[in-house]
Structure formats: C-alpha cells, structure tokens
C-alpha cells in the first residue's frame, strides 16, 4: 500500500497545509524539523481509514437510515462525495482503488473472515448446489453476456468508438458476470434470508473466483494473441488451467490449514502470539496462491474453513476472542474502504467513456442471464434436493447476484493497448457495480419482505437436534454401506473416521482432543444459558460491567471444554449440571425443597437459543452473554464442589488430593503468617500444577483453577480441623462443616461463606490485605472497640474475608481462635446490622447462586447467621 500511496503527489482537501516546505534550512542545528514526506504515506492511509470509520459512526447515528439503506450504498455515496471534493480542489482525480492494493491488502481479510466463520456443515451440505452455481452458472453468464453484447455490437447498436471483437466482449463478460463476495456479504448480511439461501449465494460468490480468474486470464491472453493466433490447444489449455487453478488453489489452502493447525498445537507457552499465526499463515496462503497464479480466494477460503476446527480447539479462549474480533475488524474496515474508494474512483471522468447502448445492454443481459441461469440450474438441482429451492428462493438468488469491487479491479487491470474499448468497459463496470449495489441492494430487503422469503430463524442446536443429527449421519452411512452405494454420507462417514483416527490426533492437543464430544458440548452450552436465564429471572441484574472486575477475566475466559476436561480427569460425578443440585437436594429438608422449586421453576422457562448465524459486522451478542454465563457457571461449579466435599467429605480426584497436600504443606510451613497464606498458596499451587501436570491446562485458566484450589485447601483444612479440634461445644470456630452439622439445613449458607471468602481473596486483594491487618489487630487486641479499624468503604469486602481468617486460624491454633473469635464477630454483627439491606427470605435462599459482585448484599445477610451460630455455640 505504501508505494501506491506515496507515488502520488499530494493535493486536495485531505492534505493539511503542512505539505508546504518547512522553514528554509538554517545553517545550524535544527530544533524541530518538518518531516511530512517521511510520514506522508502511512498518514494518508490512516486518514482514509479514519474517515471511513467516522463515516460509519455517522451512518449509524440514525437507525432509520441504516435500516433502509445498506451501509455499502451509503459508503459508495460518501465516496462519490469525497471524490467530488477532491476533484474540485485538486482539479484531478486522486486516491483511487488500485487493483494491486485491492487484491493484496483489502480482499484477503474479507475472504479469510468469511472462510473462517463459514458454517462449514451447511456449506458442505450444499456444496453440490454451490459448485454448480459457481462453475456452471458463472461460465454460462460469462459466455452468454459476452456473446450477446457482441451481437449487439454487430447489430450496430453501439457507438462506433467501441472497438471490440468477440474476444473482447467475452473478456468483459467474464469479469462482469462473477458475483462478488464483498458485495453479496455486505447486502445479504442485513437482509437475513434463511441460511440455505444465504450459503448458496455466498458460497457461489466465493467459489466462482476460480472460474473468473481463469476466464479472465484466458481471454486476456486470447485478446493479446489476437484471434488469428488462437489454436485448439489454447482452448484445451484454458480448460486444463481451470482445473489447475481451482484445485491448486484449494490444495494450497489445505496445506496451509494443516500447517496452521500443526503450529497452534505447540503454542502452549506463547499464547500471546497465537492469533498472529492464524492471520499470518492465512495471508501467506493467499500470497502463495497469488504468486503461482492459482485462485487465491479459494486458497484462503479453504484454509479458513479447514483450519478452524483444530485451531479453535488448540488456542486459548482469549486467543479465540482475539482472532474473532481482529478478523471482524479487519474485514469490516477493508470492506468500508473498498466501497468508499469505489465511490471515489467513479468520479474520475478521464478513465471512462460512456456508451448508452453498452451500459444498458450489459445491465439488461446480466440480469436476464443470471435469472435464466438460476432457473435452469435450480430445475436440475431440485431433482436431487430433498427440500427444493422454490420460486421465491430463485428470485432472491437471481436478484442477489451483486457485482462489486472485484469486477472493478479486474477491469482497471486491463491493458488499454490491447483492449481498445477499455474506457467503455470501465464505465459500464462502474455503472453495473453501482446499479447492483445501490439499486438492488436497496430493493432486495423490501423484496424479501414482500415475497415472504423464509428468514433465518436463529437456528439453534437444541440437544435434540445435535443428537439426531449425529444419529442420522450414522444411520445413513450404515444404509449406504448396506446398499453398497458410495454417496455423500458414505464419504462423510469415512472422512469423520479418518479425522478422528488420524487428523485430530495429529493436529490437536491431547487435552483438546479428548473433548470433541459435541453432544456434551451442546449440553454444556445449554446449561450455561439456562443458568444465566435463571439469574436474569431472579431479578439480580448481572451486568457485564459489574462482572468485569480487573481480576476477573481469567475466570471469564475459562473455556467450557476445559471444564469438561477437568471433570473428566477428576473422574468424579461432579457435574456442572444444575439438576445435580436438584437430585442431591431432593433428599433434604423442606426448606431445600422450596428452593429446589424456585430453581426448577425458573430454570428452564426462558431458554434462550443458540444462534449459529454468520455476521461479519456484528459479532453476535451471545459472546458477552456467554462470558457472563461462564462466570456464573464457575461460581455454580465451585459452590457445587464445595458443597460436595463438605457434605460427603469425598475427595475423589487425584488432583484434588494433590492440591490439598500442597495446601496443607503451605499451611504447615507458615502457620503464623496466615494473612499472606491464601495468596501464597494460590500462586505456588498454580505454578506447580501447571508445570507438573500432564494435561495441558490453558494458561488463562490458571487463576480459575487456583480458585478451586484455595477452596479445596480451605475445605480440606476445615473439615479435619473441625472434626479433630472441636469436640467441646464451647469452641466454635465458624467452620462451615461444623455449622452445618449443627444445623443441617444451613449447609447452603456454610457453602456460601466459604465461597464468598475465596472469592473475595481473589477479587480484592488490597482490601483483603487490609482486612487481614484489621483482623490481626482484632486478634491481638481483644478489647479493641469495634468499628474503628478501617474505613467504611472497606467493610463490605472485609466482612467475608474476616470469615476466612478465623476459620483457618481455628485449625492451626484452635485455642487462640476460640477465645479471639467472639469480639470480632460482635464487631461484625454490629456493622452488618447497621448497613444490611432488608432481604426477603426468598432472596436469602437464592443467594448461594448469586455471583460475586453481590457481596455487598450477600455479606450482610450472611453475617447474622454466623452470629447466630457463634452465639449458639457460646451459649
């Protein structure tokens, strides 16, 4: 891009007056020097991107406009305006869409984005239709348009200035007839037709690149050779080069996808550059294919489609998010720039020459032949489709054949010496592109509404669908085997087995490979959704902003699959499911039964559906939701496990046991430095664990894992501690186990306390330190009056932490704690009563389920209960 931009001399409105030569160079040393020349090129690039992005913001200020007019239209219009200004000021056209810049920099991000986020199953299910439209349709369009225009020319309807033979028109036909992926995406994305229709049109626009490239090159060389010198072998070469270009491009893509997957398998310790590999290798694939003049679009598309499964399994959740956002950002800005520059380029009148007959003829023919082609092909294809493409679909498909920047870049690339009518072709292409993008883009939405085209119905994998899809695949493969028919299912079955046996083992990390159980994945996702909707229903607003505490993201990014992994490894039935809570609790008191009902009743009703749609500009909102859900999930899980281990004193997993060992060690080594202990334990156990463990834990899970560890450490300590040391009723350390023993139905609150405390240590380490100091001071000076230790703003956080301290202290030095305890609790109770908000009993029941930022409310309500325990004990 740099040479392109810097080669032009500057002028026009965009140019700041800075370009004027700096002060005459003085003889001595300069204090400052004006260096516009050095920064000119990147500065212009940045300025244009900025203008385009700002324009987008402005467009979206008005919801009305963007809901009617597609963004691409607005951008083209903006480009026209800006181009006009530039033209008026500089007296010559500047800043145009250079084919090189377009093909090397602007197109790859869009294609990569569309390939990577392509719904692959849908794509391969419809691959037959897509290929037919892409290959046969494009061939038909090219030849029909070219020949028809030539006929028009022969009939003498065109301006005599159009010097073009049959080959010229075929060349023009080849570049004008290809549906453009950029334009299709930009328009269809806002229309929301059903997925099948979308994937067919969009897939066609991507895959027809090979046809376009080959036809364009072949006809270009034919034009250069001149009609007299073309031999039959040249035609054969043309056909052969089609297969070479398309298959070669695909092969390059697959090769790089393989490399990419393999590389990401080993990026465990360099997480931060993981996303870079994705972009780099895909780009290198594009360049490699371009270098040997294979179809670069095919290469990147297939690279994206094929690598996704393995890459997503290998890289961390953070990297996944980064890849997704970066890709969307790049693609979106590329697209913005493309459309804007299309508009700017159009004002350059020196480039084009108008011929009404050619323009109108082209417009008419491309619309006509596209419609005819679609109808004929669909007629054939429908014989093989279970759900046929009906008339309305065909209308949308014909009408959705948008042309775009690819055609424009190709026509600019023509050689004026060889193609005499280039100026006419340029003018026609610009009109066609503008017509399709603006007129068709504007009208397709009303058309879709008017025709009542089946919209995308936010397809969501319910567990049923996931299950049956798998089952059907197997069943059909079996039947195909029995009848000895090697059809689609047969090959897919074979592919899946191959993938499972060899590819996945080679390209995925061990930990990731084990988790490829989609059924369980879907189940897990659904559960998270349910859990979140439960929280939503509970009326406790879990806003994302609140959840995004600085120390939280690590937990946020815990991938769901690794949760499964942990579960599997632990070998326990410690399931994340909410129903487990139900089943365990169903044996318990009525109080719990009531809660069970609350859970049950609110759990499943507002089930939100998973949306498997593809959108380039708008990352579907469920991402954030999912993160929220994951946070919630984590909380649920931790609580559950605390609950389990407390309840049954079961330590089923090795890792748990090991962690407990470590935790114990730490506690034994520095029992008197308890204030720092939890933090120490956390860090050390994390490091040891991640180093020693066989399975590859994701880095960003570290703290999550640790949180569990501390939990278990606490649990492991409290349980024996309370059993051994507290036989007499007068020593009442407020350990959850004991409290629970005395008041069995209060188990929840005990859990809550532990959970809250560990939570707090993580979230507010500063506060925690203060709290420790504070508690230490309360330990040392028994008679110190309550309420003066710390500022009021720390109290909320301090309370739960205080809980933790006596509890762990009680194990190490039970005698001390038993006598120190009371005052601190008194002080707490005084405080908590003062600032506790009135909570209904229902809320109290719900509290264990609430996430951490509810501490402010949770702590006060939990406090009185603790006080009750203690008092009971002391009485």
């Amino acid at each position, binding site marked *: 891009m740099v040479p392109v931009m810097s080669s032009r001399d500057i002028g026009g409105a965009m140019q700041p007056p800075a370009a004027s030569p700096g002060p005459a160079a003085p003889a001595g040393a300069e204090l400052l020097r004006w260096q516009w020349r050095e920064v000119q090129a990147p500065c212009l690039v940045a300025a244009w991107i900025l203008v385009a992005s700002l324009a987008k913001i402005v467009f979206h200020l008005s919801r009305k406009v963007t809901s009617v007019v597609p963004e691409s239209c607005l951008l083209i219009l903006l480009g026209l305006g800006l181009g006009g200004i530039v033209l008026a000021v500089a007296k010559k056209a500047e800043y145009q869409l250079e084919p090189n810049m377009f093909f090397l920099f602007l197109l790859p991000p869009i294609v990569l984005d569309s390939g990577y986020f392509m719904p692959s199953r849908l794509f391969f*299910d419809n691959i037959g239709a897509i290929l037919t439209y892409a290959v046969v349709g494009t061939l038909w369009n090219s030849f029909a348009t070219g020949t028809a225009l030539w006929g028009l020319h022969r009939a003498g309807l065109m301006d005599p200035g159009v010097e073009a033979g049959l080959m010229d028109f075929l060349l023009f036909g080849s570049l004008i007839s290809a549906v453009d992926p950029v334009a299709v995406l930009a328009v269809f994305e806002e229309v929301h037709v059903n*997925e*099948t229709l979308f994937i067919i049109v969009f897939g066609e626009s991507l895959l027809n690149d090979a046809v376009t490239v080959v036809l364009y090159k072949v006809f270009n060389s034919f034009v250069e050779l001149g009609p007299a010198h073309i031999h039959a072998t040249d035609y054969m070469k043309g056909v052969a080069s089609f297969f070479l270009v398309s298959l070669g491009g695909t092969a390059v893509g697959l090769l790089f996808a393989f490399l990419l997957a393999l590389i990401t398998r080993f990026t465990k310790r360099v997480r931060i550059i993981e996303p870079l590999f994705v972009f780099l290798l895909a780009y290198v694939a594009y360049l490699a294919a371009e270098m040997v003049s294979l179809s670069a679009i095919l290469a990147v598309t297939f690279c994206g489609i094929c690598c996704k499964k393995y890459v997503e399994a290998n890289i961390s959740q953070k990297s996944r998010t980064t890849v997704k956002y970066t890709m969307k950002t790049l693609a979106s800005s590329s697209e913005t720039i493309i459309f804007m520059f299309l508009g700017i380029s159009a004002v350059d009148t020196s480039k084009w020459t108008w011929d009404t007959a050619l323009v109108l003829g082209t417009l008419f023919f491309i619309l006509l032949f596209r419609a005819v082609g679609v109808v004929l092909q669909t007629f054939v294809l429908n014989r*093989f*489709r*279970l*759900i046929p493409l009906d008339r309305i679909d065909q209308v949308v498909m014909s009408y959705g054949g948008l042309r775009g920047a690819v055609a424009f870049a190709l026509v600019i690339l023509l050689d004026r010496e060889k193609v005499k009518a280039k100026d006419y072709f340029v003018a026609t292409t610009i009109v066609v592109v503008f017509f399709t993008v603006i007129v068709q883009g504007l009208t397709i939405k009303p058309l879709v509404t008017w025709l009542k085209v*089946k919209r995308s*119905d936010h*397809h969501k994998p*319910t*567990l*049923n*669908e996931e*299950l*049956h*899809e*798998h*089952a*059907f*695949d*197997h*069943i*059909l*493969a*079996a*039947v*195909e*085997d*029995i*009848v*000895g*028919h090697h*059809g*689609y*299912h*047969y090959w897919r*079955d074979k592919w899946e*087995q191959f993938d499972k046996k060899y590819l996945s083992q080679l390209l995925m990390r061990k930990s990731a490979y084990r988790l490829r*159980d989609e*059924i*369980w994945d879907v*189940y897990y996702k*659904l*559960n998270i959704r349910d859990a979140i909707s439960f929280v939503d229903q509970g009326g406790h607003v879990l806003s994302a902003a609140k959840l995004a505490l600085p120390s939280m993201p690590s937990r946020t990014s815990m991938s769901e699959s690794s949760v499964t992994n942990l579960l*599997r490894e632990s070998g326990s*039935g410690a*399931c994340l*499911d909410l*129903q*487990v809570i139900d089943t365990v609790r169903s044996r318990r008191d009525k109080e719990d039964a009531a809660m069970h009902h609350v859970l049950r009743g609110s759990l*499943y009703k507002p089930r939100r559906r998973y949306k498997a749609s593809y959108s380039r500009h708008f990352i579907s909102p469920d991402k954030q939701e999912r993160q929220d859900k994951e946070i919630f999930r984590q909380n649920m899980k931790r609580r559950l496990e605390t609950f389990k281990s407390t309840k049954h004193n079961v330590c089923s997993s090795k890792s748990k046991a090991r962690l407990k060992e470590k935790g114990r060690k730490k506690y034994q080594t520095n029992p008197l430095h308890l204030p720092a202990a939890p933090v120490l334990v956390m860090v050390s156990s994390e490091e040891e664990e991640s180093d020693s463990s066989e399975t590859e834990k994701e880095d960003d899970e570290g703290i999550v894992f640790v949180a569990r560890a501390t939990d278990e450490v606490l649990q492991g300590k409290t349980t024996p501690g309370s059993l051994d040391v507290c036989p007499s009723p007068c020593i009442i350390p407020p350990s959850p186990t004991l409290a629970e023993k005395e008041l069995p139905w209060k188990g929840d609150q005990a859990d809550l306390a532990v959970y809250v405390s560990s939570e707090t240590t993580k979230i507010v380490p500063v506060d925690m330190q203060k709290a420790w100091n504070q508690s230490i001071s309360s330990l040392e000076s028994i008679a110190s009056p309550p309420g003066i230790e710390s500022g009021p703003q720390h109290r909320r956080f301090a309370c739960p932490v205080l809980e933790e301290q006596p509890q762990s202290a009680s194990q190490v030095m039970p005698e001390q704690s038993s006598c120190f305890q009371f005052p601190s609790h008194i002080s707490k109770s005084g405080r908590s009563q003062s600032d506790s908000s009135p909570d209904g009993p229902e809320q109290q029941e719900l509290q264990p389920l609430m996430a951490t930022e509810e501490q402010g409310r949770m702590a006060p309500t939990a406090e009185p209960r603790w006080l009750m325990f203690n008092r009971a004990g002391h009485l």
Partner: protein
Amino acid sequence: MRWKSKTPCSQKSEEPIQPTSLSLFLRLFYRYRDLAPQLVPLDYSDNPAVTLPYELIGSMPELKDNPFRQRIAEVFSEHGDGNMTLDDFLDMFSVLSEMAPRDLKAYYAFKIYDFNNDDYICKSDLEKTVNKLTRNELTPEEVSLVCEKVIYEADVDNDGKLSLADFQRMIIRAPDFLSTFHIRI
C-alpha cells in the same frame, strides 16, 4: 399423513415401493444378491421366502464401525429380528429416498430410536442412543443428564417420554432437520 396403525409391518405393506426406475431396482437387487449369492436366487418370479440373516449384514466390513447397524436391520426387517427380505431391503431404500414423504421419514427415524419397541422414546432408549453415538465415552451420569435434557426439550405432554407426536413436532420446528435424512443415488 396420519398413521392408522402403529406397527411398522402393517405400515410397510401399504407403502408403495418408491424406486421406480428399473435400473435402480436392478442395481439394488444385485447388491442384495451380492450380499449372499448362495442364498438369493436370481429368479424371483414365485416370490421365494428368502431372508438375509443379520449376521451377514452386520459382518460387513464397512459397517463394523457403525453404531446403528443392528438397529437399522431390526427396524426395517419385517419381523424385527434383523433378517431382511428383498422387500425389506427395498423398503429401507425407499424410505430414505428423496421422494419419500417427510412424515414417513420421521416415523422411521422414530422407530430407529425406539429400541424397546414400545412406541415411545423413553429415557433408556435415549441412553442407548447417546452411548452408541459417543462410543461410551461419557460417564453414566453425563449420559443420564443429557437424556433428561433431551426429553425435557421435546416432551410437550410432560409424560417423561417422547411420543411420535412429540418427535414430529420437534422435527417440524426445525424445517431443515430432515433434509439430511435421505440418500442420493
């Protein structure tokens, strides 16, 4: 299409055999015969009572990895024992052809899941399915949870098991759902 009788056998006899093209029929017939040349005669004019034992089908090398091989043979065989006559063989094919109505497909899909033939997909049926699909990689608790969820999702009348009506409703809700349930020849 409403089902007058629930039993697959009586149902099947009413269904016309769909693959009309003679060449296709012959292809299928030869394939059928190839499975057991010593059992199947070339002359079918007197409609001999020839059945292909399940052992033959189940031992096909292509099928050894397929979790549903036995179930398919059972569902499509007339007596539910996995032994297939030529008619059964053709029936299986016509159900999965593109021309078969969706309700018929849904019915047979339902039958395939209904392992214990009680006309309901109950939890044990689903557990079998899930176990087959995941090749016993999930723990029993996980399987049980998944099954509960599946039933919960689709069970409209709340009887804890899925009837054919439930199943069809679920399939109608996802229009493209059965689009994969066919074989292209």
